[in-house]
């Protein structure tokens, strides 16, 4: 278990500043998730930690040691790539054992460690296949096996599940969480899927334009987002955000989550026309047009099915409103 500490880390590609002063402490054994919109620098930040990109300024410490200028292989990290990056010409066995064979470990040791990793990931029966004979989920497991077998201090994942279908993604999410618990290693995970972020993370780092917007546990970010950006990014369907004056508040931005709005006829705060209804079974997501505010999304019970064009009254739950200065 190792900590990762970034201080004032910057990265520019030519004239473009991609990472603009990141300070971050990741505790030993933590599962840390980087989220943010596309192009905000998540992958770049991860690649800086991996050593695949050179920092323009600032320092990276892993386990207390300054590794800013160290080779990737000397940092004690392992990385799982979005498109798996398995060596196509090698069998699963050789893919997993590649790093060990480069390090010239004895044959017997390589064999034992590869088989232990394969066992843990239920890959034993596939060891002699080539990557192209595997399904997407199996390839992803091999890529994870290749990381495990190196026994790294820190695991790095760059959107590892984004090429899988929804059902498999849900399953792999659970497997990865189990793996994290079992290994107890520090893991850094990049995703733009906020379900992955909410369900797996001990700590979420929200990035925006190369800067950290907020750091905290999933629940902290959900309950007390520091900015409208974070508020809009965490939670699904996303938070309704309005100009403070339009709702008669003194703050700059006013936000209320769809699940914190209730439909009521008793002195409602707003009234809106139903524009669209999404019935998800467990709940119903209702899109309304509210005069002067525009769109408002409400999450209601699954048995609600208001006709399109009807008028509904809406009130916020007390204590659940967000006011951003």
């Amino acid at each position, binding site marked *: 278990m190792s900590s990762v500490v970034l201080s004032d880390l910057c990265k520019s590609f030519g004239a473009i500043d991609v990472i603009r002063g990141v300070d971050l402490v990741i505790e030993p054994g933590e599962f840390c998730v980087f989220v943010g919109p596309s192009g905000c620098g998540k992958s770049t930040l991860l690649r800086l930690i991996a050593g695949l990109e050179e920092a323009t300024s600032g320092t990276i410490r892993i386990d207390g040691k300054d590794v800013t200028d160290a080779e990737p292989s000397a940092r004690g990290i392992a990385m799982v790539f979005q*498109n798996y990056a398995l*060596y196509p010409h090698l069998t699963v066995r050789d893919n997993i054992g*590649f790093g060990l064979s*480069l390090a010239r470990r004895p044959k017997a040791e390589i064999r034992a460690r590869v088989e232990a990793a394969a066992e843990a990931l239920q890959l034993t029966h596939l060891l002699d296949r080539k990557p192209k004979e595997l399904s997407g989920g199996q*390839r992803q497991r091999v890529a994870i096996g*290749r990381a495990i077998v190196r026994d790294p201090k820190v695991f790095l994942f760059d959107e590892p599940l984004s090429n899988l279908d929804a059902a498999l993604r849900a399953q792999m999410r659970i497997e990865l969480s189990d793996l994290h618990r079992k290994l107890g290693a520090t893991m850094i995970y990049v995703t733009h899927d906020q379900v992955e972020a909410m369900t797996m993370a001990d700590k979420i780092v929200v990035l925006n334009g190369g800067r950290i917007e907020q750091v905290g546990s999933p629940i902290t970010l959900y309950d007390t987002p520091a900015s409208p950006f974070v508020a809009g990014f965490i939670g699904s369907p996303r938070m309704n955000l309005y100009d403070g004056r339009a709702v008669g508040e003194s703050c700059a931005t006013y936000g209320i989550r769809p699940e914190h709005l209730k439909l009521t006829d008793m002195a409602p705060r707003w009234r809106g026309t139903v524009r669209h209804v999404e019935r998800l079974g467990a709940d119903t997501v209702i899109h309304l047009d509210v005069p002067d505010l525009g769109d408002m999304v409400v999450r209601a019970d699954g048995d609600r099915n208001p006709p399109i064009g009807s008028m509904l009254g809406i009130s916020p739950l007390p204590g659940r409103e967000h006011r951003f200065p």
Partner: protein
Amino acid sequence: MIFILPFVYILLMAVKTKQEAALFLFAWPSEWRAWENLVEVVQTRNYMLLLAYFNSTVITLGAVTLLVIFGAMVGYVLQRRRSPWNRVVYVFLLIGLMVPPAVVPTIWVLQNLGLFKTIHGMILIQVAYGLSFAVLLYRSFIASIPRALDEAAIIDGARPWQVFFRVILPLLKPVTVTLIVVQSVAIFNDFTNPLYYLPGRENVTVQLTLFNFQSQFQSQYNLLFMNILLVTIPPLLVFVFCNRQIVAGMTSGGVKG
């Protein structure tokens, strides 16, 4: 059929007697003299043909090996590294591909280097002539190999040369096979370059034996055709054995992860 007919003709001529061959007819030989003709051709001028085979093989093997290794390495560096020198190198490669070589200055350079009339000089000449093509071929193929593969290997602890030899080079096999076939046939069959750069009796190559023998075998066309037959066989074998891989190499788009 059109490809086979000349071969059949050569074959038939090669096994005829001297008198029959002189008629140049596309006819069945009355007498099969395959073995006698073969022995006679091989023994001509002190086993010159065997020496020629040896020389040609050495030149072909040496040049093709160097072409594969240098072509793949230069192509790799050119494709993966972003540097202002890339453009310069690229322009030189295109020049190398387009501008015809000047013979006399080349000979002059070779003489100054002490490489004129030597086998390794000839190898270097063939490498120089083929390198542009090899590099461009490799470069475009390497572009289809995802960079994440290099990065995965680097994280696994591979040094740059290990990334190349253990990950990239094995993936280049389809191009390599194509290159080996095309270049080895071309170099083995090359006539003019050995003629210019490799004069001397002890340096004959297979194609030059034809030239040398032509005068000697003036009235013995059966022997000349036997010689042609022997010269044609090695490239033919290469094509027959590698045919499928060549097609695979030319059509395969690259590597999927």
